[in-house]
């Protein structure tokens, strides 16, 4: 469950897309020569929160991922057009059965201390992540590899040696990876920080190498020079980086200001060039100011209210449908969230590919329900609560945050005015208490959000399989499970996407979840900052190609 606009959001890229779908914002034409050379190229971005770690093997929150992505590099990297490019690996070979990958590390790949980046570094890094004692909470990203899960599982006594894991450096420049099962999206994963290499000699020698800028050895476009806790992280261009020709910035500063209004103030004073997490109450003013630099990027995420359908009165589909139809979603987007969000009449957001990758899954699927107060009232009286009379006391559980609170209050009021339901109370809980409550299914309705793991509708749809760990609605439907299983096993895109559309239809007919809006990512970026990629998932921003043009 995602509390939207929370920095710890897990957004993982699992799927390789070699076509630019709308999920790739901010990409402009390449840098033009002269304008850049005159001013010192510095970008100062507010990271919003202190990274919990910058050890690639443990990085998990968005601040961690953003920094690690700027200073480190994996076998591959997503470029400005959101295509997967060779990075540390110059090329690769994939076996016919799709289980064995051979990566050839480029000869000019260097660590910041001048040492060559070798296949041994990769092998060491991956096995380190899987070591139970190292205890990375992201180790499961590597579970696609043969024996990776078994080795990482502390209760498994058969696979206890790292040698049994399916990754091996054949020589300094060849890395061979064996997967447990063929996984088409494996290549895309190698662009994710958990798969990044570490400098073997340094890490073996000094377990706390990642704490100080002096001992941090990296291989990405930028190099860490200073980390002032809860203030800023200063990076400069990494002259040892193989693709340094493409890197334009002299200095990249990640500032850490968590209070949204303070960060906005610093942006408006020109202290910051890029700020996200804008107070929604300031959006109208920023929209009205032409030079504010307000931009709205796509975000692969949906806001929804999850019914607990094992509890009354939500065990009745008519109640669920009535509540869903009685809202005015456009008003929620216009007056509550204010970030140009789109009303959600289905579950899967815009920005994901259909059978033809240039078609949008959402547009092809269309809307699955409509708002209608009459219809809502009809369903509610059918269910035995005419005009909301006799509707039991219900609690809408949300994670405490200003935006969630406002959304909940607006929805509460709409149900009151449109359906006559007076008995909905809002229960805001602190983050971890909220998580505990929904995962034990003690809620009646829970406000939540869901963001993409990877660029595919499956990232959303597989949540609601009968025994899914994140399915906290109590929804169990065999047909739905079969459709998901079919989509996961077929090699025919037509069948696969078709099954997913059908599954979404079932989900919306049964309505264990009530979709509200599809999120966007409003951010502020000064007009002189160019070529910053704003991915719809994963790190907040990609700076490799960024430059300043005043």
């Amino acid at each position, binding site marked *: 469950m*995602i509390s939207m606009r929370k920095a710890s959001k897990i957004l993982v890229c699992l799927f390789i897309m070699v076509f630019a779908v709308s999920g790739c914002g901010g990409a402009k034409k390449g840098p033009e020569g002269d304008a850049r050379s005159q001013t010192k190229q510095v970008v100062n971005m507010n990271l919003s929160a202190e990274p919990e770690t910058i050890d690639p093997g443990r990085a998990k929150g968005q601040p961690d991922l953003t920094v690690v992505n700027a200073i480190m590099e994996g076998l591959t990297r997503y470029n400005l057009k959101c295509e997967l490019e060779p990075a540390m690996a110059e090329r690769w070979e994939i076996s016919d059965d799709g289980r064995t990958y051979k990566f050839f590390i480029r000869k000019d790949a260097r660590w910041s201390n001048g040492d060559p980046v070798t296949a041994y570094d990769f092998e060491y890094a991956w096995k380190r992540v899987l070591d139970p004692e190292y205890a990375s909470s992201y180790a*499961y990203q590597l579970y696609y590899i043969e024996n990776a899960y078994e080795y990482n599982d502390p209760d498994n006594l058969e696979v206890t040696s790292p040698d049994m894991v399916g990754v091996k450096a054949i020589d300094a420049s060849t890395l061979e990876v064996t997967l447990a099962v063929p996984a088409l999206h494996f290549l895309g994963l190698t662009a994710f920080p958990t798969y990044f290499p570490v400098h073997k000699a340094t890490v073996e020698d000094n377990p706390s190498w990642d704490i100080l800028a002096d001992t941090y050895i990296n291989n990405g476009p930028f190099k860490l020079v200073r980390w*002032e806790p*809860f203030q800023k992280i200063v990076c400069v261009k990494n002259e040892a980086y193989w693709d340094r020709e493409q890197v334009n910035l002299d200095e990249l500063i990640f500032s850490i200001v968590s209070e949204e209004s303070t960060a906005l103030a610093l942006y408006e004073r020109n202290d910051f060039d890029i700020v996200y997490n804008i107070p929604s109450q300031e959006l109208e003013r920023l929209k009205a100011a032409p030079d504010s630099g307000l931009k709205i990027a796509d975000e692969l995420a949906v806001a929804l209210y999850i019914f607990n359908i094992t509890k009354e009165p939500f065990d009745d589909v008519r109640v669920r449908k009535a509540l869903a139809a009685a809202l005015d979603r456009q008003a929620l987007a216009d007056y509550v969230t204010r970030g140009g969000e789109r009303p959600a009449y289905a579950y899967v957001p815009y920005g994901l590919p259909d059978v033809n990758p240039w078609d949008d899954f959402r547009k092809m699927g269309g809307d699955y329900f409509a708002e209608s107060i009459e219809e809502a009232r009809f369903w509610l009286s059918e269910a035995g609560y005419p005009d909301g009379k006799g509707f039991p006391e219900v609690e809408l559980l949300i994670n405490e945050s200003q935006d969630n609170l406002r959304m909940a209050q607006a929805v509460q009021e709409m149900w009151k005015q449109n359906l006559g339901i007076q008995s909905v109370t809002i229960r805001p809980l602190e983050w971890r208490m909220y998580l505990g409550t929904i*995962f034990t299914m003690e809620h009646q309705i829970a406000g939540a959000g869901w963001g993409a793991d990877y660029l595919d509708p499956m990232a959303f749809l597989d949540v609601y399989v009968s025994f899914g760990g994140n399915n906290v609605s109590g929804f169990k439907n065999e047909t739905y499970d079969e459709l998901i299983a079919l989509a996961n096993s077929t090699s025919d895109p037509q069948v696969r996407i078709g099954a997913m559309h059908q599954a979404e239809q079932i989900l919306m007919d049964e309505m264990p979840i009530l979709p509200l809006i599809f999120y966007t990512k409003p951010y502020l970026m000064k007009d002189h900052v160019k070529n910053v990629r704003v991915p719809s998932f994963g790190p907040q921003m990609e700076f490799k190609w960024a430059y300043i043009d005043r």
Partner: protein
Amino acid sequence: MRYVLRKIISSSITLFVIVSLTFVLMHLIPGGPFDSERKLPDSIVKNLNARYNLDKPLREQYIIYIKNVLTGDLGPSIKYENKTVNSIIKEGFPVTAAIGVAAIFLAVFVGSLLGVAAAIYRQRWPDYAASIISTLGISVPGFILAGFLVYLFAFRLGWFPPALWDGPKSMALPVLSLAWFPTAIIARLMKSSVLEVLNQEYIKTARAKGLPMSYIVIQHVLRNAAAPMISYVGPALATILTGSFVIENIFALPGLGKWFVLSISNRDYTVILGLTIFYSTLLIVLNILVDLVLAVLDPRIRYTKAKGAGL
């Protein structure tokens, strides 16, 4: 000397009780440090718990913790991989202390000035000015004041930066916000104790002898009227030296105060305990110091009496 020794022993017991109480309370709050929006596989949760000894029974965790604390190791932060509780204090304390000490100095100086002026010029304009300032000081919540100061000085006038820790100029607004409240308290304390001293016989005698007022105030009044202020400043300093969540948040300062809130929301158990120990120790030590200073100022104070007061 015997007093100090006794104080140290009784304080250690107090400290021990507080740590144990915190340990119990913090494990009573629902949720753990590794909860996340997506359910982690069991294998990973097990590894994480094992790494921080959280898989052991609570009693055992408690014993391990106490043992480590006795060797001066407050443990690693569970949430921030590259921080230990010791390093958190080491990083945050200098910032908090710089601002806190500046704020206390300002408060003592301005507060005493206001208090003394108000007492001497009773019922005249300095008295009214001082009461207005001191009542405003305890009437406006810190976060509202800070917001107002930022609006005025950073935006309207542009004199000071609105946030971040960058040189002396950036200290101005946080110090002002922080000093506001204690200034008000000190002004009130000083006013009433100076009034009291002014009514004493020996002051009246001195005035009758025709000694100048300024001389009397500096020589006699201040020395004798400072006691209540000193007893206030001791504990206040402990609070200020451990930082203010609101001020640090609004001004984006890398101090200690935010950790009191952050550690709980992260269920960062070691940090919660470490901060408790740090704060309580600081408070106890400062209180002992206050007692000693008071004793130096006024030899009539007997330690046995101080004990009863519990400070």
